[in-house]
């Protein structure tokens, strides 16, 4: 399956991923810039922040309370579409998912 990351300048990168991976893991494996993920997925750094593309909003589930708390701490503005990509697990329905990378992560 595939995931597409769109940088703040509009450039795009599509990477190969498998169900069960997090959107963060898929980005790290392919060296996608802007997904820093310093804490490795412990929900302790907020440097894996992404905005889920509107077209996918209904398929990415909801964020937990603790994820929301951490997003509130992120460098770039938290929006309704904000997710920590380390908490966003890929499922079969998410093939082709598109996320946007924020301006700053730390």
């Amino acid at each position, binding site marked *: 399956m595939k995931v597409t990351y769109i940088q703040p300048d509009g450039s795009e990168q599509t990477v190969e991923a498998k169900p069960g991976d997090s959107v963060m893991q898929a980005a*790290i494996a392919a060296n996608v810039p802007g997904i820093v*993920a*310093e*804490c*490795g*997925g*412990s*929900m*302790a*750094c*907020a*440097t894996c922040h992404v905005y889920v593309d509107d077209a996918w909003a209904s398929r990415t589930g909801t964020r937990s309370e*603790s994820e929301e*708390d*951490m997003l*509130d*701490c*992120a*460098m770039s503005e938290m929006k309704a579409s904000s997710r920590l990509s380390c908490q966003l697990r890929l499922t079969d329905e998410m093939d082709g998912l598109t996320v946007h990378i924020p301006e700053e*992560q*730390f």
Partner: protein
Amino acid sequence: MDLIEGHAPLAPSDDIPVLDIDPYDEAVLADPFPYYAQLREAGPVVFIPRYEVLAVGRYEETKATFSDHENFVSSRGIGFNDFKLEKPWRPPSIILEADPPDHTKTRRVMSKALSPKVVRGLMDDFRSTAEEVVDGLLERSEIEGVVDLAEAFPTRVFPRAVGMRDVHARHLVDYGAIVFNAVGPDNALRRAAMARAPEVSAWINAACARDRLTGEGLGALLYEAADAGEITAEEAAMLVRSFLSAGVDTTVTGIGNALWCFSQNPGQWEALKADPSLARPAFEEVLRVTSPVHTFLRTANVDTEIAGHPVPESAKVLCVLGAANMDPDKWGDPEAFRIDRRPVGHMAFGAGIHGCVGQNIARGELEALLTVMADKVARIEPAGEAVWRPNNAIRALDRLPLKLIPK
């Protein structure tokens, strides 16, 4: 029941390999790498007869056990003492040594107080202080890296960040070392720490009171959370104590270890000077190869298992973060110090719900210092033998004679 090192005796399942060594022997603490390799090779989980504990050191099992807060709890202590069976030496930490739901509440308050946004606000002070400290050292032909730099920098910026009115650099550094020695077995290191604990703890506890803090810093954020009813005022004081136990000696160690890595790998210093934006990833690699926190424990709170081997309730498990960070199955060439490795997933800050809540500030401090140094220091050269200081949980330098050659 007769306790062993403050925990219940353990008769392990026959299928668990035995590793008959003392990981807390001072010679092992000074050079742990052969022990790390033995531990990983012996099996996914091993039994250490001397202390009647289990230990994990392969990356997968270490990460899984350390972050499995349901089966392997922190509230029974992250050292040898089982708080359920023996009274701890100090009132337990209400974050580090707590489980959900209590942990969830204090963690939320601490995450906010130490968030990336808050750290951004501290960076100017970190940078200007790094310049002052480094400029002062460049005038000297030789420095002692531990005292002159590794201790000097955090003991200036961190108390100011917290908003402390009282600053006693020695007590601040030593309190962390005492707390970390206390998680070990009842050896000479722990006994020496316990002998110093009353004096240093008394000073620390007094310094956490609201009237000993300014209205500006991280401490004030915790007392504001108390005013808002999220925690009590006593809890706010306890969390300020957590800043001081977990936030000073650890970063001192991180800086000392970073200087050591670069003094041993001059090519990597050249790489950092060529691209100072590698300061943050370079610190991640320092953390991976040196693991400032080398070992913390967990306690099985139910009958459970590790890699298919049964683990009974009350078993203490050494989670050897230093060994996991050197596991060749995870890292390929773990011995190589490469500042552009980007070792996402290293265990130096832990993993899971207890993953270091201060990691953003630690990164901020190191980014500021390494960036300033990359700008001003041509070379970092050893000026004598580096000596490690044995500690039951921390791997830190005792002495690090260096020459800083200005650009």
